[in-house]
């Protein structure tokens, strides 16, 4: 017997709540990766791309899951990486720290 739409909605809502928690945990872990990549910006040509790719994913998934503040920070990091010339190490690092604070706020909610 097929589940009713209400049952599917309830199951989807429950799974979305789990995904939100998982996103916060994973993205918090990625802050360390971002910090490490920023530290290597001057000597690692791939570091900027790594930062951009992580930020792009956090931006899209964060917004889809309703974390607008995190998504906005991630969008700014991505834009700094794509700017010509790219943002400075200090500029990128500053927004990463903003994102870390926003993540901490969301985890407390």
């Amino acid at each position, binding site marked *: 017997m*097929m*589940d009713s*739409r209400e049952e*599917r*909605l309830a199951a*989807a809502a429950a*799974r*979305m709540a789990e*995904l939100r928690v*998982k*996103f916060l945990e994973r993205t918090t872990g990625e802050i360390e990766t971002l910090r490490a990549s920023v530290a290597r910006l001057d000597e690692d040509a791939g570091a900027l791309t790594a930062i951009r*790719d992580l930020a*792009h*994913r956090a*931006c*899209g*998934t964060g*917004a*889809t*899951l309703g974390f607008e503040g995190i*998504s906005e920070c991630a969008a700014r990091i991505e834009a700094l990486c794509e700017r010509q010339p790219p943002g400075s190490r200090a500029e990128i690092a500053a927004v990463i720290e903003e994102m870390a604070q926003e993540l901490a706020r969301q985890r407390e909610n």
Partner: protein
Amino acid sequence: MDGRDATRPAWLERLLQRDALKKLLYVDDDPDIREIVQLSLSLDGTLDVITSDGGEGALREMKEQKPDLVVLDVMMPGMDGPAMVKRMRLDPALAHIPVIFMTAKSSAEEAARFRELSAIGVIAKPFDPMQLSGQVKALWEAG
């Protein structure tokens, strides 16, 4: 009379046959987005949604599963969405499958590129999981 209209393309004919779930393949390298899309598109019970993380595996999946529609992310590592659709259009087994792109970055150049690949539509990211099913179906039926 079986209600079939010879002027309708084969993919639309399949859509209108209501004795089976329509099969949709979603392609995205982000596993969370794949799961959210699968949840969203499965809500009304009319779609059989399968997913792939992209690349050659996605093309193999298309040949094996024969989806009625492919929805795919644009920005993916290795083979991006447009490159994947170019491969589909060159393959007689896949060329007929309608395609919808999903992208966070839209520009006039990108839109022209998608039209050249005969995409039936583009859905912006981020998307509202509760609205996604309606958006996909509206593009599919209009395409």
